[in-house]
């Protein structure tokens, strides 16, 4: 079994995954730097260090993400959508619907029983359905983005949050804070708004079980539960890896395929 790697250079974060024998042996996440090749080098180095190997040990590496064409060390590149689809099946073997909410975009992918991409849809332009939306809102609330989920679980009376535009929503949230609305109700409103926007995309491709959620926002229980409520289906929680590295993981899985070590 040779060692493969995937490198996902996103707009906000960059991720790398190293796999051997079908297992993740190292992964890393860093904040993206100004230049994609710098992000790629540094995230990959971090992962290599964790795995205690060098780039020479990597038999095949696939790049993905916005900066994929600027990664110097990859053998091939692939779109994020294909990578997320691939990763989803590894994370949840019978996944048919993949919902990914990343930093600047979100997508819903439909897979057939073999795991082929049947259909996909991504959000358009605006950040209001993406992880960036949550980051902005968390900042306004003065909490960490990772606290939003826990906060919203305490809410009794969630607010209605504007979703048309992140900037407007921000103004709205400030208004609610000034009006003395409990922070957990605001957090819950934000999470529900996010879920509602995502549910439209998911509804668009038609949700089939199992549903797998990838991307950083999958770690926010508030959004996941709100989404479950709206879609009326259970979303399978990912236990075997960090959902945020799904893009890089998919890239590594494609690398493995390229070596002919799959199937």
């Amino acid at each position, binding site marked *: 079994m040779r060692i493969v790697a995937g490198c996902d250079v996103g707009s906000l974060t960059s991720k790398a995954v190293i796999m051997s024998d079908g297992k993740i042996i190292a992964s890393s996440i860093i904040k993206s730097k100004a230049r994609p090749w710098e992000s790629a080098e540094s995230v990959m180095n971090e992962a290599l260090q964790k795995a205690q190997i060098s780039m020479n040990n990597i038999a095949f590496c696939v790049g993905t993400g916005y900066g994929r064409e600027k990664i110097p060390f990859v053998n091939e590149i692939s779109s994020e959508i294909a990578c997320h689809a691939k990763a989803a099946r590894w994370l949840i073997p019978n996944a048919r619907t993949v919902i990914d909410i990343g930093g600047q975009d979100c997508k819903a992918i439909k897979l057939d029983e073999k795991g082929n991409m049947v259909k996909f849809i991504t959000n358009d332009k605006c950040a209001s359905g993406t992880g960036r939306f949550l980051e902005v809102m968390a900042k306004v609330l003065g909490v960490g983005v990772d606290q939003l989920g826990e906060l919203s679980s305490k809410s009794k009376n969630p*607010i*209605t*949050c*504007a*979703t*048309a535009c992140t900037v*407007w929503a921000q*103004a*709205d949230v400030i*208004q*609610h804070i000034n*009006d003395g609305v409990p922070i957990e109700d605001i957090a819950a409103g934000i999470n529900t*708004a996010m879920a*509602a926007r995502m*549910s*439209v995309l998911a*509804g*668009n491709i038609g949700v089939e079980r199992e549903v797998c959620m990838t991307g950083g926002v999958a770690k926010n229980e508030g959004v996941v539960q709100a989404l479950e*409520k*709206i879609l*009326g289906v259970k979303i399978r929680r990912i236990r075997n890896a960090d959902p945020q590295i799904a893009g890089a993981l998919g890239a590594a899985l494609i690398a493995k395929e390229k070596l002919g070590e799959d199937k």
Partner: protein
Amino acid sequence: MRKELKEYKFDWMLLSCFSAASKLQNGTEKEYQQMLRYIPYFRGVVETVLSTGKPGQRFIEICAKYLDNLVNAKERGYHTAITTFCFSPIIFYAMDIMPICLEVMSVMLTFTYKRGSSDFLDFCNEVGFTETSCSSQRGSLGAYLAGIGTDIDMIVTDTPGVCDTNANAFAFAASYLNKPFFQLDMPPDLTGNRSDEYHREDYKALIAFLEEHTGKKLDLDRLRETLQEAEKQDAMIAELEELARLVPNPLPVTYNFFVYASRFLFAGMPECTRVLEAMLEVGRKNAAEGKSGISNGKEKVRSFFCYIDHYVQSLKFWQMLDEYGICYQGNILSRSWASNAPHVKEYGTYEAAYTLHTDDLDKLIGDIALLNSRMPMIKSIRGPYDAPHMWLQDTLSLAKMYKADFIVYNGTPGCRNTWGMVKLLARDTEKAGFPTYIMYADAFDERVQSWETTRDRFLEFLTVRRLI
């Protein structure tokens, strides 16, 4: 869409709400107060409407009646047509077709459901309709696309040439649901022989379409009866509008809404007449006493809405106007363009108006074609906004005549035709001396801008412009 929403027909749910609301005041005050606790989302509307006494009671009753007709239309042998607010329902009633007005249904949803029409708005997008489309149709359209409304026989609209997103919603629905579709197309000019002929020929094609899909011939005598009732209503509306010119305006803030909603639901039918009668009673009485229609009796400032109202948030917008003593001098939806309307007489704009000749059967089709071409929005938002008889002229002349102190634009982000020129309009109205406020909220979707922000920005405008 959430599964639970598909459990029941949405129009049946609305009927249950409105019919229960229409009986709320049958008991004692204590019982009434007790009941309100069980309808937290509908409560604001119920209180605002019923607090106006008989007109409000009758208004809720006709809403319930309309829904009852709608839900039972098929069983009672009627055909059903999805249609739009600016399409006069007179022709449908004259031909035993139940008009299902999407915008009215959307407003009813925002009034009664916890999350308003948001789930249905979103459902439209799920099935491929654009999220940038107007929320006024999308709200209830989603329910029909999801198959949780009464069965539909046909889809009819009259907004091509006036409002793309409206026309497009109906065209989309027809294709999605695979139903017969008819459009009345509006030429860019309102008046003149060419436009008159176009309106008339187009309307004849509409009648042919309706006859084809109902298998019934139009009975001119029945049409005459309906038009006679509409004539009566026009005269009553003219009297109400005449009353609104008084200072203080004796009509409560909500009356304007009652007028146009009643017309959208039941123009040409006695139900509408009854609501108008009740409003007139109160209006005449207040006028005789020199009383303002504002709840605390103090009219402080007069507003004219150049487009539509704000329906989300349980009528909080109206409550706010009332609370601040802001008298409501109408909007684009409420004005009748019958030749006896006060503003038509005042400015002599008879060519932009219509006259019904109910004594002459041969003229009926031409008359109703003309009436329909003078419906709200259809009349004044075609061609350029500053052309004769169009939006600018109407806004300025009405604001002046009804002594408005300021003008407000409120619509939806889906409204291409007004957002394309509202900045120009506001510039012109400001130049004419009317402080003008453009609201960025969505009249049907509170997720665009929350009520708190809407209220604060509105009040900020009033304060900055020293109107309050």
